[in-house]
């Protein structure tokens, strides 16, 4: 993902709250990002000002309650302009529904609520299981694979294509776009990927306007909120945002979880031995391996925990850290599948709470069940060194496994 330019620290920020911790970019973060974020609770105040020449400056919180407060008060913390993604000003589009504040937000969200409800996503379960097994078939007999490229990437991309009504033979193309758009370090590759997606989706939107099906892109095209169809830019922004939101996040989440599974045979066995507890297992793994951050912009001056912030300031919830808040989750770094269920922040919260949350939960559940059924014992290949992607989606670059 592209990065915002570094900015000066505003005069109203007290020097004692300014920290340069290399969030998402520094060597200490990249060595073990989740441990790094968990430890912030011991070393940093609940709200501080993060200075980062690469990722940009902003207020950040590591508290579960504060994150929910900001996410649930869009009147103070708007998503407008909070996504530093380069777009052509002459052909601008919004990430829909993320960049739309209430009340207009609901009209877009309602279009896809039935598709992404817990009941709606269950329609995809059979497809997911088949797909997971097809992928495993390709490498199980070799006794080794790179998890990220053989499973973690293609699984969510194929599910996305199916959901959208796009052909599966586009999988490798979409994988390439996703990698270049979200992880390339140069703007040329990202720009080329962007143009490729734009041209392809424009053609698909035209085709599905003529010949609709029952999948998501057609559902968006055929929606008539307030009696009117969405504009071409709205349809594109909606579809493109789903692509951005749903691919890298699940990819990174699966990679983090499988790294942990590979290194913790006893806990892997615990999951296998307690199949009826799968939903709690998925939820707890999502808690400890959350991968994203929620950026907002203040619409007005506000004080939180005695910290004075001003309109126009950037604010980010370090969601993985908030999920390690010891006030809410005692012994937060312990993976405990018997914790009482509480709201986690893996999917943010408030009206912009991830629409794909139940889809992601189901993908993770199916992936765990099918993988562990067929490959119950596995480990990281000897000598492999785990390196993490810098940037706003936290996960390892590669994960070579053997069994």
């Amino acid at each position, binding site marked *: 993902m592209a990065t915002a330019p570094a900015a000066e620290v505003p005069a109203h920020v007290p020097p004692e709250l300014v920290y340069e911790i290399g969030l998402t970019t520094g060597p200490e973060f990249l060595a073990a990002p989740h441990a790094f974020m968990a430890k912030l609770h011991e070393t940093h105040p609940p709200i501080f000002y993060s200075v980062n020449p690469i990722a940009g400056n902003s207020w950040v919180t590591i508290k579960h309650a504060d994150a929910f407060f900001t996410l649930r008060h869009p009147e103070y913390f708007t998503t407008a302009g909070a996504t530093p993604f380069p777009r052509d000003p002459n052909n601008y589009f919004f990430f829909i529904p993320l960049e739309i504040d209430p009340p207009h937000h609901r009209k877009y969200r309602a279009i896809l609520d039935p598709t992404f409800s817990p009941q709606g996503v269950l329609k995809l379960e059979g497809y997911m299981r088949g797909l997971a097994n097809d992928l495993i078939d390709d490498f199980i007999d070799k006794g080794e694979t790179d998890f990220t490229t053989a499973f973690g990437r293609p699984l969510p991309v194929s599910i996305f294509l199916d959901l959208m009504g796009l052909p599966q033979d586009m999988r490798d193309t979409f994988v390439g776009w996703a990698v270049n758009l979200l992880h390339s370090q140069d703007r040329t590759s990202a720009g080329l990927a962007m143009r490729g997606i734009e041209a392809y989706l424009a053609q698909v939107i035209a085709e599905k306007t003529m010949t609709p099906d029952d999948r998501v892109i057609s559902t968006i095209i055929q929606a008539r909120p307030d009696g009117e169809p969405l504009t071409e830019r709205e349809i594109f922004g909606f579809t493109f945002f789903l692509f951005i939101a749903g691919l890298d996040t699940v990819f990174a989440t699966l990679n983090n979880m499988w790294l942990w599974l590979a290194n913790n045979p006893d806990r892997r066995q615990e999951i296998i031995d307690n199949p009826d507890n799968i939903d*709690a297992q998925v939820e707890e793994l999502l808690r400890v391996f959350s991968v994203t951050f929620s950026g907002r912009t203040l619409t007005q001056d506000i004080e939180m925990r005695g910290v004075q912030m001003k309109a126009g300031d950037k604010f980010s919830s370090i969601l993985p850290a908030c999920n390690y808040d010891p006030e809410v989750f005692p012994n937060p770094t312990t993976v405990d599948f018997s914790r009482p*269920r509480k709201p986690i922040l893996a999917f943010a919260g408030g009206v912009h709470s991830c629409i794909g949350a139940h889809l992601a939960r189901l993908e993770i559940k199916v992936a765990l069940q099918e993988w562990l059924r067929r490959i119950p014992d596995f480990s990281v290949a000897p000598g492999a060194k785990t390196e993490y992607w810098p940037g706003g989606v936290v996960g390892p670059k590669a994960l070579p496994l053997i069994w």
Partner: protein
Amino acid sequence: MASITYVEFNGAQHVINVADGDNVMRGALDNGIEGIIGECGGGLACATCHCYVDDAWADRLPAPGQTELDMLECASAERKATSRLSCQIVIDPALDGLVVHLPETQY
């Protein structure tokens, strides 16, 4: 189909016909009833669709599961014996006439 009466905290009543297989949260969201938020979309992940089942109906609904009981601990408004997460009340014709009271806040 069942006719569901939503009583807001200020006493305002809304009578809504909700389709079988939908749930009480969805009926509120689709009809602009603001006392229910349902931010997670009905998956026992947010506790923002809290409601109080009317006393007359308290014994007539299937009991909540353990996850729902856990999540009710996280509801913002006072928890009562009749507290439920409305996403877990699935509509069938036997619920025709159900009355639910909405709390002062979901946050």
